[in-house]
């Protein structure tokens, strides 16, 4: 029984069957990649995990509980954090403030009226945030406004924010999209490090095969809303069905 169990999920947008009978099981403490050509339904599937979309059919269970019908913040409080394709951070705030928000959310829940408390005297929150920034090599940028950081650093900050909530499942939506080679390699190293050091399950959607094969323990190939194959990376590379989906019949 995996930590994330997807059963018979289907989703239709008008005349387009975006997802069809998707079954997927992500085992605890593994890195599971979902790959597939453009329009295969990867992002739609991810949106069904986090409460942005509700599938027409099927079920999505996280740790034995259904996530369907819950709002994104409730699902996050259950232990699922999401990293977006373009880094979603609080651009107007400083790096340290960015870091403090998820730490506060982890401690205080979805809402707490703490209007009279002084933020800078919240020692435990500050310490935890600074330690996380230190861990991720962002310590000297703590006072910087988040919007003025490089793309790579923004991604790093976003991952740090997600990790600080100690999620059980980390969802990554094309974390290296639009990145330069060096930044991509940095991100791969970072994710490898996270995988080794923490008890965390990672589900990743990715285009870049280099990233997928460096990280994934297991790969699901999606095409036209249906999973084609699910297997170990070494078996996926030469799989005829995968080649067909990616390169067309001629290959």
């Amino acid at each position: 029984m995996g930590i994330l169990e997807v059963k018979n999920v289907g989703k239709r947008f008008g005349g387009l069957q975006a997802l069809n009978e998707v079954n997927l099981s992500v085992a605890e403490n593994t890195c599971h990649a979902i790959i597939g050509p453009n329009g295969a339904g990867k992002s739609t599937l991810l949106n069904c995990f986090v409460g942005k979309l509700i599938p027409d059919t099927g079920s999505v269970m996280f740790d034995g509980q259904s996530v369907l019908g819950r709002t994104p913040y409730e699902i996050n409080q259950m232990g699922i954090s999401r990293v977006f394709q373009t880094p979603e951070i609080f651009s107007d705030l400083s790096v340290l403030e960015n870091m403090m928000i998820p730490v506060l959310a982890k401690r205080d829940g979805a809402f707490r009226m703490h209007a009279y408390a002084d933020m800078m005297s919240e020692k435990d929150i500050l310490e935890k945030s600074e330690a996380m920034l230190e861990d991720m090599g962002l310590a000297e940028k703590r006072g910087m406004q988040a919007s003025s950081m490089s793309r790579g650093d923004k991604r790093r900050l976003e991952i740090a924010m997600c990790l600080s909530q100690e999620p059980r499942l980390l969802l990554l939506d094309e974390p290296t999209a639009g990145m330069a080679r060096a930044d991509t390699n940095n991100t791969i190293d970072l994710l490898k490090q996270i995988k080794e050091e923490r008890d965390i399950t990672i589900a990743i959607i990715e285009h870049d095969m280099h990233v997928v094969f460096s990280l994934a323990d297991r790969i699901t190939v999606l095409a036209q809303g249906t999973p084609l194959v699910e297997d170990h990376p070494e078996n996926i590379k030469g799989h005829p069905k995968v080649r067909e989906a990616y390169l067309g019949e001629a290959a």
Partner: protein
Amino acid sequence: MLGLTKKDYNLLLIVACLTMLAPFILNPFPEGSGLAQFNAGYPDLMQRFVIFGIFAIGFNILFGLTGYLSFGHAAFLGVGSYAAIWMMKLLTTNVIPAMILAVAIAGAFALLVGYVSLRRSGIYFSILTLAFAQMSYALAYSVLTPITGGETGLQLKLDDARILDGALGAGEQARANLFGLNMSSSYELSVGSWLFTFNTGYYIAAVIMLLAFYLAIRIFRSPFGLMLRAVKSNQQRLNYTGLNPRPYTLAAFVISGMYAGLAGGLMVAMDTQVGPERMFWTASGEVVLMTILGGAGTLIGPVLGAGLIKYMENILSKINSDILHTWFAFLPDGLEDFIITLIYPFIGKGWHLTLGIIFMLVVIFLPGGLVEGGQRIAKLFKRKDDAEDTAASTPAE
């Protein structure tokens, strides 16, 4: 000190000094001199400075922090005013219970309006709040006449119930007071040809503004304030960080509604009458102007903006063509008339034109408002100092 950082504490001190010394600061010109009409140190106007300061501080907690632009905040001000005057009519003319009721009722009304309006964001939110405010205005003006006094509004009357107060003596009038201290009593200090007025009502309003300002600093610096800024910055990320933006924005809306109610209650405490025009949409627009002009999202900005607009409204609008003629009397006749024709549209009733131009200039060149202007000037001086320092130290090496 007081749980504030040194910088915030200093800011609070500066504001405290300015408000406490306002009768001096606002009256720099001797009585009878040609410039005396620029004096703003009379009780009525000083009271308005601090009351609208409170209104703008509260508005800024919503607009400056969360970015939700309410176009109906005057409704809460009006509701606060009506609540306060009813308290004075029915229970006691002491201002404390009146203001407590004003804040409570305005808060409850804000909860209702906010609960509905915050289902939308951006322009739709603004329109919803505007609709609520105009509805309140129309109701107060017509249907609710038994409660609001309709077009004529409400005043204190001799035959009001005033359950807690003793009977009035012959010839006495019911007056707003603080445990017997009359709001309109003043002490006048004459130094040479200068006249300084210290008004009870002003000082009570000023102390309340300082408390309101202190509370705003605490909110700005709290985890709650951080969450409100996060709402403005990126709601998507906030949602995916396990936080529910709705109660945060609603709490901010109610708090700022309560500030508006407090301002409305204070207005009644200073001048015991209310009319529905207080809730008209232009009054809602004015507080938006104040906040943006001073600097939205800054602590001191809204207070500055409120001061500037109220100063222009009361001082600039009093200049008429006769006064202009006395100013420019030294010029040859033709030139005098020409210059007066040029200036005339910007003064008197035309003060709105001046305000509009200043507002445009600020929005275009100083998007951070007057506060940004101040910061730029401060930076300029700092750079000059640094340049001199390095110039002075280079030859020594």
